[in-house]
């Protein structure tokens, strides 16, 4: 676990390169998470809903985003994690999640760090998109 007592704004957290989000991963995540919304796994349903294809569960990316924080700080130190979903993640996208210390702050006499988080995808045609923008609060004692 990282020593957070000396962490400073601007410090980068080790990123998590999740890799390609395949249809199989979406099927497994649907089962594991309990999110059975067919728009993520059933191409027939997605097309009837007017979409070209299925798209990834936003919560799959948020789960990977949280790994950036837990892998760096340890889960016991995580106070909160939040994010906005900025864009859908197409099937086949390559996902990388990253974070950077934004602020040191004192909460009730305990040092904390606010961390800015981001999920970014690269598509097969080379286009990139930010899919999640978030933040976490961690204890830094």
């Amino acid at each position: 676990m990282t020593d957070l007592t000396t962490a400073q704004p601007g410090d980068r957290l080790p990123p998590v390169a999740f890799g390609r989000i395949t249809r199989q991963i979406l099927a497994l995540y649907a089962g594991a998470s309990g999110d059975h919304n067919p728009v993520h796994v059933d191409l027939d349903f997605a097309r009837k809903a007017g979409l070209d294809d299925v798209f990834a569960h936003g919560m799959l990316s948020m789960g990977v985003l949280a790994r950036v924080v837990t892998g760096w700080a340890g889960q016991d130190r995580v106070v909160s994690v939040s994010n906005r979903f900025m864009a859908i993640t197409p099937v086949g996208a390559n996902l990388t999640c990253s974070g950077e210390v934004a602020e040191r702050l004192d909460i009730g006499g305990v040092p904390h760090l606010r961390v800015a988080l981001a999920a970014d995808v690269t598509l097969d045609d080379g286009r990139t998109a930010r899919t999640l923008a978030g933040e976490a609060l961690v204890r830094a004692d």
Partner: protein
Amino acid sequence: MDATSSNPNGLFNRSTKGLITDPVEFQVEAGRISFFAETLGERNPIHHDRAAAQAAGHPDVVAPPTFAIVVDLETGRALERQGKPSVLARIGCDYRRLLHGEERYDYHGAIHAGDRLSITTEVLGFEDKKGGALELAHLRSEIRHPERGLLVSITRSLVHRLA
């Protein structure tokens, strides 16, 4: 979050503003934690191996931070198996138009395998955005343990694409 604003194309059932659901129980199983962690690519043994979790000071394998979504969705499905509507059904989610807007977890304690948890959800309200092209539902859920109290609160916005 003005429930009185009306959107003629709105699909959410706005009369559910203020609803607080009865608690629904959920039994946390080690295999489910491991499966969930695996799909996230999370290989830290505290999520997969009881001895490793105990060596790290936990009573049993630890749920990853976003496991709260499993408690939420599986309790919704448990209600539906009993012929009762889930919160998502009660607020009128249309999966063809549904997107996730925001999600927040505040942690007060860890979730472990073996925990018998309960969850309640409050419908905070509804909101129109982008001239009625989007409508939002705001929800907050609390996951509790009978002895350890509040473990996780979930704050969420769901979005219908209407245009």
